[in-house]
């Protein structure tokens, strides 16, 4: 695990341990180093002194070349353990007597000048033997470093033991003391985790002291307070919003219901009114007819003419009432939804109008096959009939044509809802009237111009389209023609 991912508790302990260990190790090594140095100096001094004493006490033996006594003297050195070899050289530099703890020692072939020198694995000491101011020989001794190594060993063990004990003490102390630092941090981290997990901003981290961590905890808690406030404000706003949306929705539903109700009442009224209006109208018509048949010769031309006008008006009134009835019925009855082949329907419409179309010389084009849709067969027929009749009527061009088709994505350009159209090259509709054309009994031209009519056709078409949850609109350029677009289903 990389160090940066180690838990903070262990990091702190690691710091304590490494610091303690490092300083102790350094101190220990320094101690050993200086002790070794001091011991070496002591050893050097000690052996130099020893060499001096031996040299002084051996003057006679050297002077008299008494090898036996000299050897005895050297052998006495065996009592001193670290001394592994010793020798006397005469004044000519020749070995006079020698001692070695273990055989195999190679003595220096020539004595050197006085002094103690550390060599590999030992200490060489030379001391001249002087008698009456003359150098008569040299004493040599070699000490091994066993005392030094054993001392180093003892010190290393001591340092190691101290190291271990301090390490344990540091571990013990730091495991307790690290809580001073890690405790608040862990608290903080735990609180932060709980807050983010439970989204509970009412939680607070516990503050333990007034150090930087304490201030951090304060800042953290302060932040929590702010978040809590904002959260609750947000919550309130949200609830308020929900409440208002609900209110509006209820209001809307109520209005909708009211609208629906009034629509229905209107439809009912239109039906009842038109239905009830028809009977007296019939009476007026019939009696006018009687008048015309029975009293024609008693009336002058003007009277007859007025009577005929009355009859024409009653017929017109009747057709208006029929249209109204028809229109109101469209709002009342259910649609007979079925799978409908629009090609058939268009063909039927064109057939029914064939004579007029031929008389007027109008060409009807269906550029591509129309799809099958779910719709009310009769009503859809009405849509096409009305639109085709309109297209026929409002055309003053010598070469008249009507095009019926479908644009896959519609001119609106969105969704996959098929958009049907009926296009002509007629007189066109000025843009300001684009909405008015769908109003009931609204006619843009004189009563008898362009073949007359009640002015209910497009209103009925619109109603049928809307009952299919479709939409109807138009594009037109005055004098060039008009295109009515419509859909027969909810647009997707």
């Amino acid at each position, binding site marked *: 695990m990389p160090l940066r991912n180690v838990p903070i508790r262990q990091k702190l302990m690691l710091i304590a341990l490494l610091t303690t260990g490092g300083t102790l190790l350094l101190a220990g090594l320094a101690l050993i180093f200086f002790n070794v140095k001091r011991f070496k100096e002591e050893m050097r001094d000690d052996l130099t002194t020893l060499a001096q004493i031996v040299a002084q*006490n*051996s*003057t*006679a*033996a050297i*002077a*008299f*070349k*008494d*090898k036996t*006594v000299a050897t005895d003297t050297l052998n006495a050195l065996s009592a001193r353990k670290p001394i592994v070899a010793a020798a006397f050289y*005469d*004044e*000519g530099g*020749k070995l*006079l007597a020698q001692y070695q703890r273990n055989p195999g020692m190679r003595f220096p072939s020539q004595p050197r000048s006085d002094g103690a020198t550390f060599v590999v694995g030992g200490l060489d000491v030379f001391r001249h033997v002087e*008698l*009456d101011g003359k150098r*008569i020989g040299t004493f040599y001794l070699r000490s091994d470093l066993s005392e030094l190594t054993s001392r180093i060993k003892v010190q290393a063990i001591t340092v190691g033991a101290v190291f271990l004990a301090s390490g344990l003490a540091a571990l013990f102390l730091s495991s307790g003391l690290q809580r001073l630092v890690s405790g608040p941090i862990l608290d903080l981290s735990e609180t932060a985790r709980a807050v983010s997990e439970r989204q509970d901003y009412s939680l607070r981290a516990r503050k333990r002291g007034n150090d930087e961590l304490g201030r951090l905890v304060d800042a953290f808690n302060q932040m929590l307070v702010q978040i809590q406030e904002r959260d609750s404000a947000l919550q309130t706003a949200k609830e308020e919003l929900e409440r208002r949306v609900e209110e509006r929705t209820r209001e809307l539903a109520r209005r909708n219901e009211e609208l629906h109700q009034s629509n229905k009442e209107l439809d009912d009224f239109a039906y009842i009114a038109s239905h009830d209006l028809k009977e007296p109208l019939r009476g007026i018509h019939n009696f006018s007819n009687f008048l015309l048949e029975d009293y024609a010769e008693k009336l002058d031309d003007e009277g007859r003419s007025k009577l005929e006008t009355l009859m024409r008006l009653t017929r017109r009134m009747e057709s208006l009432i029929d249209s109204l009835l028809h229109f109101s019925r469209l709002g009342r009855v259910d649609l007979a939804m079925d799978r409908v082949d629009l090609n058939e329907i268009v063909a039927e419409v064109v057939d029914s109008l064939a004579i007029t179309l031929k008389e007027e010389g109008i060409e009807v084009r269906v550029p591509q096959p129309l799809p099958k849709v779910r719709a009310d067969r009769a009503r859809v027929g009405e849509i096409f009939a009305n639109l085709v009749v309109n297209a026929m009527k409002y055309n003053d061009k010598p070469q008249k044509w009507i095009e019926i088709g479908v644009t896959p994505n519609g001119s609106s350009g969105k969704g996959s809802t098929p958009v049907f159209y009926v296009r002509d090259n007629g007189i066109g509709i000025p843009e300001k009237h684009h909405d008015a054309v769908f109003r009931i009994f609204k006619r843009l031209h004189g009563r008898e111009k362009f073949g007359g009519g009640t002015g209910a056709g497009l209103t009925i078409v619109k109603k049928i389209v809307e009952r299919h949850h479709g939409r109807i609109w138009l594009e037109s350029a005055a004098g060039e023609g008009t295109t009515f677009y419509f859909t027969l289903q909810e647009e997707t």
Partner: protein
Amino acid sequence: MRAVLLPLLLAAALVAPGSPAPAQPAVSEADVKAAFLYNFTKFVDWPQPVLAEGSELKICVLGEDPFGRTLQALTQEEVGGHRLKLIHLSSPSNLTACHVLFISRSEKDRLPRILEALGDAPVLTVGDTQGFVDQGGIINFLLEGSKVRFEINQEDAERVGIKISSKLLALARRVKGRP
């Protein structure tokens, strides 16, 4: 001459029997004894009035001189601030003026008389005769194989006031009167 000769002599004086040195000139027993005689002076103290500071240290040879030129050469040295003086005596007269008195083997028969004449005089007597020490002489040469050794009569040395260094005593093969 002195500087060259002395080390040579001392080096030659005692060659270990196990390590022959054919390149070196043969060292005679007399040469060794001469060197010993010379070295004895370094380990012996005479009472102050007998050997005053800076005075001559007289080495006398009574009788036939076995050392010849060797001792002659050695006595050119100084020992402890004293010039050495080699005196050859043919008769035992004025013996007490000597500090060291080598009594030659030739005087073997007259030995008791000579020692008696010395009395309590602080003279280091050195002999080369069997029984010399037991008769009252102080140091006597011995031969241990081919090596020259000596024995010391501590008893009489103390009696006459001559102080022999313990270092020298340590080399003696026998010390008479050692407590």
